[in-house]
C-alpha cells in the first residue's frame, strides 16, 4: 500500500492558482522527485502534504488514514518528517540539542519539568548526527552553521521521529554539487534500508536523475509528466517547459 496518497490537491492565493489539481502516491522505500520551474507550486504542494497549508480542495491520506488539513504536529507523530526550503532550526541551541529536542518532542517527553534536557537521548542524537555527517559539529551553535550543514541538521531532526515519510523541499540547496549527490545517496540508503517513502524537490538534474526512482513534473500548478527518470527526460513536453529553460 502507498505510504502517502494525494488526490486532486488545489490551492489558490487570491487570483493565482498555485496548485491546480495534483494527485500523487509515494510507495515505501521509494524516492519520488517532484520537479518543475520556480513558482511551479512545489513548495505549496509540500506545505499541503506536511500540514502547513490546508488545501482548498482534494484529500491527503497517510497509510490509508485521511489526514487532510491535519496540523503538522499531529502529522509528525504519525511519522511525517519534514525539511524546509528555507531552513528552520533552533538557533539558540547547539546542533546536538536541536536533535535532542526533536527526539524529546517525537517521544512525547516535552512536558517534563525537572530532569536536565541535555542529558536525554545523547546517544541517539549523536547517532543521528553521525548518520548525516554532522558528528564533528555537535557542540556548535546551530545559529552559526553553514547553509549546507543546516540542511543536514534538518535531515537529522526529521529522522528523529523514525519517519515513514520524508518530505524534503530542496534538501540540497546551498550545497556544492558533490555534497548534494552524497546527501541524496544517503537519503536513498535510508529509504531502501528502512522502507521510508521520500518525496523531494531538487534543482540539480544530475541528482534527480541519479537518485530518484520516479519523477513528477509540475508546471504552473499542474502535473505535466511522470514516470521513470529516463521516460521523463525523453518527454518532449518536459523538454519544452522545463529542461528547455534549464539546458
Amino acid at each position, binding site marked *: 500500500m502507498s505510504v502517502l496518497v494525494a488526490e486532486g490537491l488545489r490551492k489558490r492565493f487570491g487570483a493565482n492558482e498555485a496548485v491546480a489539481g495534483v494527485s500523487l502516491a509515494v510507495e515505501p522505500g521509494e524516492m519520488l522527485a517532484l520537479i518543475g520551474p520556480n513558482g511551479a507550486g512545489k513548495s505549496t504542494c509540500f506545505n499541503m502534504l*506536511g500540514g*502547513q497549508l490546508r488545501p482548498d480542495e482534494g484529500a491527503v491520506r497517510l497509510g490509508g488514514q485521511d489526514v487532510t488539513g491535519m*496540523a*503538522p*504536529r*499531529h502529522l*509528525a*507523530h504519525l511519522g511525517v518528517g*519534514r525539511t*524546509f526550503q528555507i531552513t*528552520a*532550526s*533552533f*538557533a*539558540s*541551541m*547547539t546542533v546536538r*540539542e536541536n536533535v*535532542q*529536542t*526533536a527526539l*524529546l*518532542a*517525537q517521544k*512525547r*517527553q*516535552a*512536558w*517534563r*519539568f*525537572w*530532569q*536536565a*534536557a*541535555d542529558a*536525554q537521548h545523547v546517544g541517539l542524537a549523536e547517532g543521528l548526527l553521525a548518520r548525516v555527517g554532522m558528528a564533528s559539529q555537535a557542540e556548535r*551553535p*546551530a*545559529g552559526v552553521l553553514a547553509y549546507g550543514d543546516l540542511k543536514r541538521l*534538518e535531515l537529522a*531532526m*526529521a529522522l*528523529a*521521529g523514525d519517519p515513514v515519510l520524508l518530505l524534503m523541499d530542496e534538501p540540497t540547496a546551498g550545497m556544492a554539487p558533490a555534497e548534494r549527490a552524497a546527501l541524496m545517496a544517503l537519503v536513498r540508503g535510508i529509504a531502501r534500508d528502512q522502507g521510508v517513502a521520500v518525496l523531494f524537490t531538487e534543482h540539480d538534474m544530475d541528482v534527480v536523475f541519479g537518485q530518484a526512482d520516479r519523477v513528477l513534473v509540475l508546471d504552473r500548478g499542474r502535473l505535466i509528466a511522470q514516470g521513470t527518470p529516463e521516460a521523463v527526460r525523453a518527454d518532449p513536453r518536459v523538454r519544452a517547459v522545463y529542461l528547455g529553460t534549464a539546458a
Partner: protein
Amino acid sequence: MDLIFLQLLTGLAGASTLFLVAAGLTVIFGVTRVVNFSHGSLYMLGAFIAWSLLSRLPREPDYFVLGVLGAAVATAVIGAVLEVVLLRRIYRAPELLQLLATFGVVLVVQDVALWVWGPVDLSLPRPRWLRGAVEIAGLRFPFYDLVLIVVGPAVLGGLLLLFHRTRWGLLVRAATQDRDMVAALGVDQRVLFTSVFALGAGLAGLGGALALPQGSANLNMDLSVIAEAFVVVVVGGMGSLGGAFLAALLIGVLQAFGIALVPKITLVLVFLVMAAVLVVRPHGLLGKPQAMARGEVEALAPIRPAGPALQVLGLVALLAAILAPFVAGPYLLSVLTEAAVAVLFAASLHVMMGPGGMASFGHAAWFGVGAYAAAFAAKGLGAGMAVGLLLAPFAAGALALLVGAFVVRMSGVYLAMLTLAFAQIAWAVAFQWVEVTGGDNGVLGVWPDGWAADKPTMYWLALLLCVGGALVLRRALFAPFGFALRATRDSALRAEAIGLDAHRLRLAAFVLAGAGAGLSGAVFAYAKGSVFPTYMAIPHSVDALVTVLLGGVQTMAGPVVGAVTFTVLQSWLLMGDFWRIKLGLLIIALVLAFPTGIAGAASAVWDRWRGRAA
C-alpha cells in the same frame, strides 16, 4: 427610553475622544512601526495645556475653540521634539526596547506634569453655553456631547482626505507599505516621520483637550487612556483608521452603558468584548494580517547552564544572603527582603520573555493578584499564612490561564499591548472595588503567622520561597519543557514539524510566569503587612521589565543580577520625590546606550574578551 438614548449619546461622545487618541497611535505605528507607549502622556499633556489656556481665556465659544486648537498644536510640537530627540534614534532597535524607551517618556512626563500643574485634579469651570442642551424632535440633547459626536467623524473624514488627496498623504501611505521605496523616491524620510509623529501627537492632544470640559486634567489619565487606546487599536485592526473608528464606537458605547448598568465590571466587560472580537477576527475588525516580526529578542547565542565559576559565585552569594540577618540592620534587611521578592518577580517574567519570546508589559497584574489573594486569605478567610502563600500562585496562575488562552496567540507588540491593557484593567478593578480591596487605602494587617513575625525569619522565608521558586523555574527551563519552549520561540515552524504544540507551550509558560509572580506578590504582602493597588500598577510591571533587561534576557542568571541591581538602585538612587523622572531617564539612557539590547552588548563584550583570552 430617554435614558437609554442619553446614555448612547454619552457613549458616542466618549468614543470620539477615544478615536482621536487611537487614530494618532495607529498613524504613528503605521509609518514608524513603533508602538508609542507615551501616546497617553501626550493626551494628558493636551488636557493640562488646554486647562492652562482655557482657564485664562474669556469663556466664549470662539475662545474655547482657539484654546483647544492651541493645546492640540502645542502637543504636536512636543511630539515633534520627542521624535527628533528620542524616537529617531531607536527606529532600528528591537521592538521591546522601543516600547520600553517610550515608557521611559511616560515616567518623565508624569513627573514633569506633577511639577508644572501639581497633584490636584484640574477641572474647567463650565460656562453656560457648554452646559446647554439642544432640542431636536422634542428631545433635549446635551450640546457638548453633540459637538464631540460630530468631531469624531469629522476628524476621520479629514484624515482620510489628507491621506488620499494630498502628496504628503500619498507619501505617508507609501511609507506604511514600504519604507525603502519612499527613500528611493528621494523624499527626506526624517521630515516625513517627524511630521507623522507630530500629527499623531496633535490628535492625542486634541483628544485630551476635548475631553477636559467633561472631566478633569489629572495624573492618571495617561495610563488609563493608553490602555483603552490599545484595546481600540487592537480591536479595530492595527494600522486601520476605519477600524479604529468602529472599535472606538464599540468600546465607547459599551463603556457608557456599562457604567450605567454594571459600574463595577465595566472594564472587565471591555476586556471580554475585546477577547470575543479577537477570537473571531484575530487581526481586529478591519485589520489585515501584518507581516510583523515576532518579539525577537536580540541575537540568539546558545543559552548555557552556569559554568563552574558562576556556580561557585552563585553559592557564595546565596550563602552571604542566608547569613545576612546576622550582620544587617533592619533597614538593610527589609531591602534584602524586597530583593528576594524581586528575584522571583523578574525570574517569572524572564520565563515568558526570554525562552518564551513573549514580552509582557503587565506582569505586575499577577504579582498583584497574588498579593490580594494573600490579603483575602488573611482578612477574608482569617486563614494562616500557609493558605495565603498557597492560594496566591494558584489564583494568579488560573487568571493567567484565562487571559493567556487568547493573548499568547498574538505576536510581539500585540502581546505587549494586550498584557498592558489587562494589567491596567486589573489595577482599575483593585482601585474601584472598594468593598473588597479597600480601594486606594489598600488592605492593611496582612501579617505573617507568629513564628515568622520577626524580620529575620520573614526574610529567610522570603529567601526560601523566592530564590527557591526562581531556582525551580530555572530548572524547568533546562528541562525538556524549557527546550521545547525555546524551540517554539526560535522557530515555530520547525517546532510544529517535530510534533510540538507551540500554543500550549507558550500558554504553559504564561501560566508559570503568572503563578511565579503571584507567589512573589504574596510573599511581598506578608513582608509588608499590606496590599495596595499600586502593586499591580503599570510602573511596577515596568520595574520587572527593566530588571530583566538589566540582567540580560538571554542569560539564565540575568534575572537574579538584575533584581539585586534594580532593588539597590530603587532603594537609594530612585527614592523620594521625582523618582519617576529618574527611572524614566535611566530607562531611556539604557536603551540609547545599548540599542541592540543590554544582554547583546554584554555578550559581545564577553565574546571579545574571550576571543582575546583564547
